[in-house]
């Protein structure tokens, strides 16, 4: 296989892992618990910037051609962990402001505003993360491994992404298919009823907001390390809707479904557009990608709102029929 093909395949795999991780984060928030987080993309961005700041080293070391906060050079996996912590902390902060007092439709509006404001701040406060030019030369942890070819290093990074995806997937399964997940779905289905049964709906929403935010941050960190660059133009507020489309197409609340949705929507549509016989004008391609994403969302909401792989109906193990039959014999009138 040629180097170019290998790199292409590796890129697709990294993008799939990154988008699956992020879509799971949104699935936990929106699909399972019903939190309309229209600011989702900023948590991915926060993770990307944090990973960059924790691995780039001081800005003066590279001749101060870019400006940013912190600027330390931490070894793997600390930048990834730091990114998740910052993503979770930022979620907690925004959650405290939005999730407690506001009704869910207003929460959604506030999130959207926060997303736009975050982009403006990142663009105009140069010292934060180098403004609209963004950060570049973000080190890839796999490239620190000496004695390997560039190709092998790329495959190492693919492996890291796959491992991260599997871990996040395991966490998703544990959370969603458990009594905890049942409470989360209860919050989505009927908030006042779940509160009336003694469960704190606000706390549940806060928790998934923080966990989902950390997942988004992890995805951003991996993506930034792979591309080596990260700028505000890559995380404008509409990007959030790519993840919403992934969740809707895959199946709200379904873990495996959303993984498929993420691969199809976030990676599939983008790749499909590249192969369409419409030339290679980047503006046209980007526009077409958005049009297709929007249409796919609408088509699914109209024709298959439950998604490709709908949320599984939970069934519980019960006493074996034989035992039930015995009980009937003992108690034939069923008192």
């Amino acid at each position, binding site marked *: 296989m040629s180097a170019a093909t290998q790199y292409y395949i590796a890129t697709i795999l990294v993008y799939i892992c990154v988008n699956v991780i992020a879509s799971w984060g949104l699935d936990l928030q929106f699909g399972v618990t019903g939190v309309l987080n229209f600011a989702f993309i900023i948590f991915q961005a926060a993770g990307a910037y944090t990973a960059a700041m924790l691995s780039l080293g001081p800005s003066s070391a590279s001749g101060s051609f870019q400006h940013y906060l912190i600027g330390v050079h931490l070894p793997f996996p600390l930048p990834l962990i730091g990114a998740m912590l910052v993503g979770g902390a930022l979620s907690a902060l925004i959650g405290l402001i939005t999730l407690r007092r506001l009704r869910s439709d207003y929460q959604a509006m506030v999130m959207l505003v926060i997303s736009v404001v975050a982009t403006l701040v990142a663009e105009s406060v140069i010292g934060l993360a180098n403004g609209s030019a963004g950060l570049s030369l973000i080190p890839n942890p796999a490239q620190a491994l000496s004695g390997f070819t560039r190709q092998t290093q790329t495959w190492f990074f693919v492996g890291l992404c796959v491992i991260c995806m599997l871990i996040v997937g395991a*966490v998703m399964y*544990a*959370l969603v298919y*458990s*009594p*905890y*997940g*049942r*409470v989360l*779905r*209860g919050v989505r*289905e*009927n908030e*006042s*009823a*779940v*509160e*009336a*049964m*003694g*469960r*704190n*709906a606000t706390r549940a929403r806060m*928790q998934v907001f923080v966990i989902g935010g950390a997942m988004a941050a992890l995805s951003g960190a991996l993506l930034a390390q792979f591309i080596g660059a990260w700028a505000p133009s890559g995380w404008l507020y509409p990007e959030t809707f790519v993840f919403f489309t992934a969740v809707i197409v895959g199946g709200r609340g379904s873990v495996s479904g959303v993984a498929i949705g993420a691969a199809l929507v976030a990676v599939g549509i983008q790749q499909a557009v590249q192969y369409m016989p419409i030339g290679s004008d980047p503006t046209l391609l980007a526009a077409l990608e958005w049009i297709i994403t929007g249409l796919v969302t609408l088509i699914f909401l109209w024709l298959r709102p439950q998604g490709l792989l709908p*949320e599984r*109906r*939970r*069934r*519980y*193990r*019960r*006493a074996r029929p034989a035992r039930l039959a015995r009980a009937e014999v003992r108690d034939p009138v*069923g008192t």
Partner: protein
Amino acid sequence: MSELAVQGLRKSYGGVHAVDGVSFEIPSGSLTGMIGPNGAGKSTVLGMIAGAIKPDHGSIRLDGHDIAGLRSHRTARRGVIRTFQAASVFPHMTVLENLLLGTPPWTGERIYASMFLRGRWRREERTQVAEALALLERLELQPHADTYAGELSGGQKRLVELGRVMMARPSLLLLDEPVAGVSRTLVPVIEEIIAELRRSGLTVLLVEHELAVVERLCSPVIVLAQGRVLVQGEMAEVRAHPEVRRAYLVG
């Protein structure tokens, strides 16, 4: 089991006094009825006891402890469990799961338990499932155990809601118009369940618009009108009260 004492409860919305100084007591183990015309403030009183509505004024004492102003999940944790005026189920969850969400909050619902104590919560859940299935059988809902609650009829949803609150083992049960929107055939079934709950020693407050239901089930009875207690006592006394006849019973 528990007794409730409400003192000087007030709530206004804008300039309207929805509840204007209501005081009453619910004796332990009684099935107290609360009736009154539309807009009398019945549901607001129930909402305030349940913690869904924050009172402007007054105290709500449950076995001597003031629970006024506690949020609804905290009130529920003290054993005050309510139903809703419109049957309130988790529509895209199975009937069995609806009942499982009725259990008092337990450690299996914590994040760390879901991640690390799978074996333990599975065992405990199995007991809960058995309990829920037994309850469903009693409610004649067992064939629907795996049906999504949203697919049931209005009356069946009521039964699911009742099953859910029974799972919670409340000490004070607040029922908000439990037979509203229920088909005629199911009304006696639901009334029998309520009567049975009362016989088991549970304290119940039943808010109802229909006088007949209250008459069949409740003693004592509190009559609310325009945000105040008009009269309280046994049904016979209440019926004899001239203001009640004027405000409510006539027509």
